[in-house]
């Protein structure tokens, strides 16, 4: 950790580490978020097989459907880095196109989730039905809320880009939105394995 003690060489970065303060703060925030999702995932695992009435996970979870939505979210992460590369290189068209694609793919993921939730509802699983329902909906619901915030954030950036307000000098705002987006993606990587595949 002592590398933080070395002084900035470059004149433009007036921080003790030479790193951008906003980016450091955002990584700290993401560190905090890991404990939020860690606690939610723990609770799901602790309450696994504890429901005293159905429907149970193997009766409702739709693996083919969720595999597709998982793929969609993974591809949105790819789109996100391509958008960042575009903005960084000053390639406005590439940046805007991929930013929009991230928002579209994110919304598609949310659409899948909405479909999944309604399907569960018709199979008799609600937030109150049993512990599986409570832990599942609260965990994936909070994840979905994070995705929603991300989609709004990215659309805001996209509108800024359309107005020509995303020159390469401002690529850091896109990079940080990207960090958030990828974080939401890695949370889903954990959820997909722990909740869907390891029933």
């Amino acid at each position, binding site marked *: 950790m002592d590398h933080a003690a070395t002084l900035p060489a470059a004149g433009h970065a007036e921080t003790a580490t030479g790193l951008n303060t906003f980016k450091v703060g955002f990584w700290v925030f993401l560190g*905090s978020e890991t404990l939020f999702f860690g606690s*939610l995932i723990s609770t799901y695992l602790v309450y696994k097989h504890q*429901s005293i009435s159905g429907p149970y996970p193997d009766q409702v979870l739709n693996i083919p459907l969720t595999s597709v939505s998982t793929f969609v979210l993974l591809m949105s992460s790819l789109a996100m880095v391509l958008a960042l590369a575009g903005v960084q290189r000053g390639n406005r068209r590439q940046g805007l196109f991929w930013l929009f694609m991230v928002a579209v793919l994110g919304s598609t993921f949310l659409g899948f989730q909405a479909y999944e939730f309604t399907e569960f509802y018709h199979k008799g699983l609600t937030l109150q039905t049993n512990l599986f329902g409570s832990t599942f909906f609260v965990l994936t619901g909070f994840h979905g809320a994070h995705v929603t915030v991300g989609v709004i954030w990215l659309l805001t950036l996209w509108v800024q880009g359309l107005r020509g307000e995303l020159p390469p000098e401002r690529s850091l705002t896109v990079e940080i939105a990207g960090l958030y987006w990828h974080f939401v993606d890695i949370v889903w990587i954990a959820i997909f394995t722990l909740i869907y595949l390891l029933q």
Partner: protein
Amino acid sequence: MATAEAEIQAGYHPHGRTGLWDWITTVDHKKIGLLYGATSIIFLLLGGLEALTIRTQLIRPDNHFITAEAYNQFFTMHGLTMVFLMGMPIAVALFNYIVPLQIGARDVAFPRLNALSYWIFLCGGLFLYSSFVIGAAPNGGWFGYANLSERPFSPGPNMDFYSLGLQILGIASIMGGVNFVTTIIQLRAPGMRLMRMPLFTWMAFVTSFLLITALPVLAVALFFLTFDRFWGTNFYMPAAGGDPILWQHLFWMFGHPEVYILILPAFGIVSEVIPTFSRKPLFGYAVMVYSGSLIGLIGWGVWAHHMFATGLGPIADAFFTISTMIIAIPTGVKIFNWLATMWGGQLKFTTAMLFSVGMIAAFTLGGISGVMHATSPHDLQQTDTYFVVAHFHYVLVGGTIMGVFSGSYYWFPKITGKLMNETLGKWHFWLWFVGMNLTFFPMHFVGLLGMPRRTYTYSAELNVGALNALETVGSYIMGVAAILYIWNLVRSYRKGEPAGHNPWNASSLEWATTSPPPEYNFGRVPTVRNREPLWLEGKEQVIADAQAAPGYIHMPPPSYWPILTAIGIATTFALFMTHVWWAPLIGLAATALCVMNFAFESTT
């Protein structure tokens, strides 16, 4: 401010707002620190009044000064106030004021976020206290054990205030934690290496790390409780397969790091005060840093020592007994290092020093009784008795509050430019120290004699009436001491002796600049060459830089979006109380609007 003219001449432009509006829109870390400080002192008095009410009820056996229901509300609110509305924010007040000065920064990393944290904290505190207005304050203990906190067993709005109020306060704490971790990583002056930072800044760093890691766990635990109470889920309801013990695990996973969130800032203060008034550098600086960090880290692996009585089984009991005892080692190291710092020093017993030395004594006692109930069989005898109450009051009143008192006497001259009255200060110290020991020492015996906590009265046959009367007398003495303290603050602020920039001849950077510091803190950011920049070579240059006339300095402009966003967030949670499912969405929409404005606001 004496330097105002120089500022204008040199091209520094103050933002020129005054009065109430200035306080509402400020993003200056020093003003936010003062807001935090003033608010938490008010809550200290409220929590103290609650404590005196509790003690008055317990002054004699079979007393009926207040009802059992009122007693439940008073001890719950006393705990919540002292932990969330006094202990944490008063430390944050000092972090705010002192840390940027100690590392040579002009402000914190995210000044508007800092203001937002404060306003969310204030809204959360007001929300929690508004419960008294309708006579339904939280009544389930500060740890709100499930399933007593669930709707069927606590149908009123009391525990709604608890679950929603703490959620609001938690948001403020996480934001503050992110802000201070980032500030300390990023905004250190040239040469201020990590291993040159003052111990107070180090402890602020560790505390902030605990804030960002522990508070999210509480947030999740509270969300489950909120969902259970409002939307009929069964997270903690055994009838549906849920497990109330899960609440205890999540709560104490937050709750034990919380203990260190409360005590590490006090450790930091003592580590500043003792060297200053011993005229010696801190003994074993590096070991002090490592032990403080180790306490924070191991503090994450001991939570179930609060749960021995739940029957965790021999393996978990053994694990948590051992891990808890291990924490005593770095803590003991700190105590010995403070004593070694004093050893052979030119001791000067100012009020600040008295409080620090008193803190070491009282904290050691609380620490030792802590090791006693780390032993799980021992704990089964002590749990839920006054022995535990004695233990954590020695740690929190003897440790945290005495540490904070020490810090306030120490830094008051920096903050106001005036010295505090030492005569009043010494009265304050001795009354407090005697009152504290009178109040809490007998509780050890009362507890071992079998008096349970959280019970509004006791029978004369228990034979603890005399000791309880003594405790109540002690608490009144503490009340008198607290009034003396407030009086001293007010009086010294009005007509204290001028302090000069470094009245204690202390070693760290905050004493280089003027008292009170200008808005931009340092005219030129000094370059740090050693651990005691005002004691060792180069001190003249450091002081000259710090007090230099400023060149062009850009300070962030004031903003009213923090307070509006905070109101939006608090309203979102408060609207749950309507039990109309879409009502919080209105608050959420308003918050989103505020957040957008916050995000797009120009900070140039």
